[in-house]
């Protein structure tokens, strides 16, 4: 998502507001679709965390790679994946980003450098290391960004990846999205030490902390880190503090969450904060609201298009397994 005119800062932020609005609309309408029984699997929403993916990806080029996790809708939209193709994927239809093979947790769009959401925690980290090795080998001036949740920093591959990236000075930005929860567990209750920044620093990796609900702040730090990485200064770590406004998955009733906690975070949510900033910086409320409304219109259209799209032919079950020894329709059983 390139700014219309990056010399004009409010315009740049307004453009990010557009992306955040698209993500928000996508997540809300995806939930409606889920509740209507249109989505085959479950969905992990990015509501409340939109500023991070949006502002980080605003500083990336199309040729840069990102690797995402189970909560990947926002990352995909921010990197430029087509929300209509994504909605088709959620509904398991033809024309979906993965042709209906993967669903919500496996959204990928290699054409925009989105190398995949992931159903297995922390695997994006180690694969990100490999993607960066590949960029070095191919002598490309591109970088890799890996998004990782707070809870996932307790898996071993997190440490293997950080260590490896550091010793080979790989062009990677690690973005830890700390929404304070890992499913139903408050991450703090199962996490030792002062937090992700200290963990990254233990490897000698430059690590920074940012208010992940402040799109301007994320934009500013992401811009400087991406520039450093592009200029050969090795991996960097960004810890973005945020809050998961919805349940772990959309049908999660959040019985584990103290009453009032979600409510208390609503005044700090990134779209609201961004809107306030835009108004303070001279953008008309009407223009802002229009952008938000247009996002809902676009995503509603995406859902309608997805509903009209046919289901993939069952024969496609046997496609894309492997070249040698692939099964064929009607085989086995």
């Amino acid at each position: 998502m390139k700014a219309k005119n990056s010399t004009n800062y409010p315009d740049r932020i307004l453009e990010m507001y557009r992306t955040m609005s698209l993500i928000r609309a996508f997540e809300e309408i995806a939930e409606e679709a889920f509740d209507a029984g249109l989505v085959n699997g479950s969905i992990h929403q990015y509501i409340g965390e939109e500023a991070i993916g949006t502002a980080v990806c605003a500083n990336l080029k199309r040729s840069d790679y990102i690797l995402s996790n189970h909560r990947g809708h926002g990352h995909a939209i921010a990197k430029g994946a087509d929300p209509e193709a994504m909605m088709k994927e959620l509904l398991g239809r033809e024309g979906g980003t993965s042709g209906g093979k993967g669903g919500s947790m496996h959204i990928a769009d290699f054409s925009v450098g989105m190398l995949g959401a992931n159903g297995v925690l922390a695997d994006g980290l180690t694969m990100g290391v490999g993607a960066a090795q590949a960029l070095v080998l191919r002598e490309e001036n591109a970088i890799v960004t890996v998004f990782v949740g707070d809870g996932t920093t307790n898996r071993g591959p997190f440490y293997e990846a950080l260590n490896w990236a550091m010793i080979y000075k790989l062009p990677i930005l690690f973005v830890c999205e700390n929404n304070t929860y890992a499913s139903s567990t408050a991450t703090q209750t199962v996490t030792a030490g002062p937090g992700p920044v200290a963990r990254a620093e233990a490897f000698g990796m430059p690590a920074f902390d940012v208010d992940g609900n402040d799109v301007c702040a994320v934009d500013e730090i992401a811009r400087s880190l991406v520039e450093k990485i592009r200029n050969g200064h090795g991996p960097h770590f960004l810890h973005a503090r945020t809050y998961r406004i919805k349940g772990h998955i959309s049908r999660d009733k959040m019985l584990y969450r103290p009453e009032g906690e979600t409510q208390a975070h609503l005044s700090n949510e990134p779209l609201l904060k961004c809107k306030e900033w835009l108004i303070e910086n001279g953008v008309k409320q009407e223009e802002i609201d229009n952008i938000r409304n247009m996002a809902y219109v676009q995503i509603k259209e995406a859902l309608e298009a997805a509903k009209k799209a046919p289901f993939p032919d069952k024969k496609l079950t046997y496609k894309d397994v492997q070249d040698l020894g692939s099964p064929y329709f009607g085989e086995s059983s």
Partner: protein
Amino acid sequence: MTNNKMTHASAVREGLAEEMRRDPLVWALGEDLSTAHGGTSADQYRGLIDEFGEKRIVNTPISENTIMGAAVGAAVAGTRPVADLRMADFAMCAVDELVNQAAKIRYMFGGQARVPLVVRQAIGVRKGGAAQHSQSTEAWYIHTPGLVVVAPATAADAKGLIKSAIRADDPVVYMEHKDLWMAEGEVTDDPGELVEIGKATVMKPGSDLTIVSWSKMAIHSLEAAKIIEEDNISVEVINLRSLWPWDKNLVYKSVSKTGRLLVTQEAVQVAGFGAEISADVTENLNDQLKTHVRRIGAPRTPVPYAETMENEYRVTTERIIEKVKELMS
């Protein structure tokens, strides 16, 4: 002692709770065990934290290697851990600790130590679960010397098997089916009643053909057998319950009677456990067979997401009926 109707999730929770009451060295560890007070996957542990406290219901970080490794260490050090890895797909993160350590320690160290642990990892296609949340990997562990593998099909199995698994001195892989967690069945409240590992049950007697199955496929096979009875085909359905060791005696007895065997499984058919059963029966009962043994299972593809493809992938009651008819013709 009475029977109560309850879900698999509740049955397995009661089984675990009874064993924890009986033996203070039984404990459980896994992600979200003490926090998940709502939702389907929470039912298995609901309320246990209140009764047993956090020394015995251990809410772990997202650290699969250490969940499994810690269970192994705690087992050799004299306790009986129940490690919950949630899904077979995530358990792959900890295959090393299970296969290289838990399964080998007794043998490798010349019988000095035992590894009395249970590792829970759910299998089966869960609607829309796709490639990384719907796999059935029982064959991986059946193939591994040192491991016991069980897979309940009914709520009574779920309870009886978790109890036996906890009491066993071997490492036991307990594979529940995600789609069965909320299925109901009659379950005894007798804390002394167990399901013996290695003993199968006849879910429905029959004389023309034997279906051997386990987990959710046993339920589908039973359904198929009932439907096909209208065509005057009498199918005997065996629910294995325990996959290693498996109840060869009961299977042999049944196949000797019917002369026909169909193995139904939800896992990928190629190199699945059905291949082992088929080969074994063919090797040992060849002269009793009226026709060659058949298998049914999933195609050798990852689990697809979209409904149309997922349905193509699934082994259904209808497909079992078709196969039975093919075998009888």
